[in-house]
């Protein structure tokens, strides 16, 4: 099976800190891929390098065979990205933002209008009207970001923490949309540290800690009959119970 996203030997150092220490990943086409890891594991750094936002010190990335760093035009055309911790162009309204992304992707204006209307309706953002995105709530910002990533019907979606700050109703909605997208032949890779979501959605999982892949495979392979949370805690390490220290709380 062809890889929708292939990563080889990715390394990134920030001054003295090694954020990502040689990562290899293969995201099969049509898979729903979860990238799990504790805070600071290097999830965002890895995904940023995979989509061309951050230049890796070493290593290469291919999107369906197109090298992201030497052939960015073709690779980026296949990608839809929802970055985390990155501001949207938030002085635009939701509809304006969608139109901007659509036109940047070279879409036909009529198609943009139609898809933008559908996306805003489905994601319950149509009511915001001419409110600027900067005045949206955190959850609404995630949703409009997702809409921007979906608008041009990319073959690969790269989502950084798509469920963070999203209320349960919207989260269920986003899950439905993503599941339908994968059923239609799309590929999703997303990062998270919420086990339930990953366990419910993903066909494949990689556990990332300290900038390296600790476990990788299909969900069942990684779980090996246990709960994902147990495996995660075992792999990542760290304390699971507090002792006497916080007695004053």
């Amino acid at each position, binding site marked *: 099976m062809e890889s929708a996203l292939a990563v080889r030997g990715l390394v990134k150092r920030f*001054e003295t800190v090694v954020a990502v220490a040689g990562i290899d990943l293969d995201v099969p086409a049509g898979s729903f891929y979860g990238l799990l890891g504790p805070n600071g594991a290097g999830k965002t750094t890895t995904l940023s390098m995979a*989509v*061309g*936002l*951050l*230049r890796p010190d070493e290593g290469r990335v291919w999107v369906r065979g197109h090298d992201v760093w030497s052939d*960015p*035009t073709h690779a*980026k*055309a296949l*990608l839809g*990205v929802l*970055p985390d*911790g*990155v*501001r*949207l*162009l*938030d*002085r*635009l*309204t939701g*509809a*304006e933002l*969608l*139109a*901007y*992304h*659509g*036109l*940047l*992707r*070279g879409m036909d*204006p009529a198609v*943009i*209008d139609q898809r*933008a*209307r559908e996306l805003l309706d489905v994601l319950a953002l149509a*009511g*915001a*009207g*001419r*409110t*600027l995105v900067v*005045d949206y709530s955190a959850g609404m910002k995630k949703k409009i970001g997702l809409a*921007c990533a979906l608008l041009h019907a990319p073959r690969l979606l790269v989502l950084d923490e798509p469920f963070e700050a999203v209320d349960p109703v919207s989260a269920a909605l986003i899950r439905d949309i993503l599941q339908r997208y994968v059923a239609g032949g799309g590929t999703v890779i997303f990062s998270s540290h919420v086990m339930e979501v990953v366990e419910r959605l993903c066909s494949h999982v990689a556990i990332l800690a300290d900038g390296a892949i600790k476990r990788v495979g299909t969900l069942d392979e990684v779980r090996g009959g246990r709960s994902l949370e147990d495996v995660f805690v075992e792999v990542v390490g760290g304390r699971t119970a507090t002792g006497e220290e916080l007695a004053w709380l």
Partner: protein
Amino acid sequence: MVVMFVRLKLRMTANNFRGQPWRIALFLVGVFFGLWWAASGFLLFAVPGLAGSEQAALLVAGFGGGALTLGWVLLPLVFFGVDETLDPARFALLPLRRRTLVTGTLAAALLGIPALATLASTAGLVLSAGALGGWTAAVAQAVGVAAGLFLCVAASRALTSAFATMLRSRRMRDLAAIALAGLAALLGPLQIGLITAAETADWDRLVGPARVVGWTPLAAAYTLGFDVAAGRGWAVPLKLALTLAATAALLWWWSWSLEAAMVGSVTTAGPAKAARGGAVDQLVPLGMRWMAKNRYAALVAREIRYWWRDVRRRAGLITFLVVGLFLPVMINIVGNARSPDTVSISMIFVGALAAVTLANQFGYDGTAYGANVVAGVPGRLELRARVAAFTVYAGPLLVIAAVAMSLLLGEPTWVGLLLGTLAAAYGAGLAANLFVSILAAYALPETSNPFTINTGAGVAKSLLSLVSMLGSAAVAVPMVVAAALLGDAPAWLWLAGPAGVGYGLGAATLGVYLAGDLLDRRMPELLAAVTPRR
């Protein structure tokens, strides 16, 4: 408590240097300029008294002190921004009283190169007053110098945060623009005064105005030592009270607008207005409907919307409007030298200043620029769109400037010359600033105060503005040379228009072409440069 704030500021400044040799270098450059400034100021303030001239001392104290205070009020708004290492909003969650917060941040603000340089230079007044009136005058003046410094710092803080609040609010922002223009207009009378002084060299006539300025909060603190020297000891408590009252009022205003900023950051947007029309029609402004709706149109439309909606960018536009249009009018109308040469040079200043607004254009977008990186926007297209969108605002202003100047000078036939020079300088400035904006982009703090800059970025920012001004002027040099050689030959007056526009267009096109290539190679680095450190 004040000590805590001061130590916090020192610690944050020091941490900011860690592992960043270039920041240390910039800081040293800042220290060097500060020392140079302090030394020359000290001499200027000290010499009249040491020479025994009471009148000259009063003149220098009155006008010099007034200019200093005005500079503290205006320069942060117009050029430098304020160092918000201790942004009061960061303390919003701590149980601090407003008074503690204001005195603490004020104390921390006193600990910076500009404040220390001001203190060092005005110390010259103490020497001057002492030479004229003995130790009592010196002591009075020392107190005055300290009070004056407090006033300066309080004024700069109060005005920047007041303007930030005003520019944020949808109702007040136009008023803020007018107020800013009015403040800049204050420079006018001062300039007239200085120019007439230089021309007439009639010192006696200026002692009166200097005395008047000395009774305003602007220079009251700097003149009281000379009152003692002149035997008017009764003036000291009055002038001190005036200064302290002004400082207190400014501090009160500051703390009020701080609170407004903290509370007001939750926008009261009211009920959402319904959207009309398709998404694309909403994005593209009415005046652009004739354009093909493609990537270029999207980029231009977004930039046009941003120059108006983003507070920082709007502040940049207003700054250009005020400084770029007002100062040349003052120089050329007030000054007597009306030759095509001087007018050309002042027009080059205006055109370059317009382009310098773009010097940190990617910094305005911050991490949001990532959207264009992910979409793989080609560098040349990106830059062409940005230049086009900015010209939608700057172009008409430049035309108005040329027409207004020629009419004010009473030389309508100079329109072509002025317009050509403006266009050449603007185009050349764009070419220079496109490179600056890619190679020397810096992150702006993600606050809603458009005047704030990151710790230690003040020197970088002012150096960068200086370099881009000089670079722009250098690229525009052929226009000056042509003006100097051909002077007011009638043929040049008419040729200068098309020649200048052609030169500007050519320079801008070449700039977009070359800088676009550079941008293609440096997109991720540029994004990293405009991402604030967290």
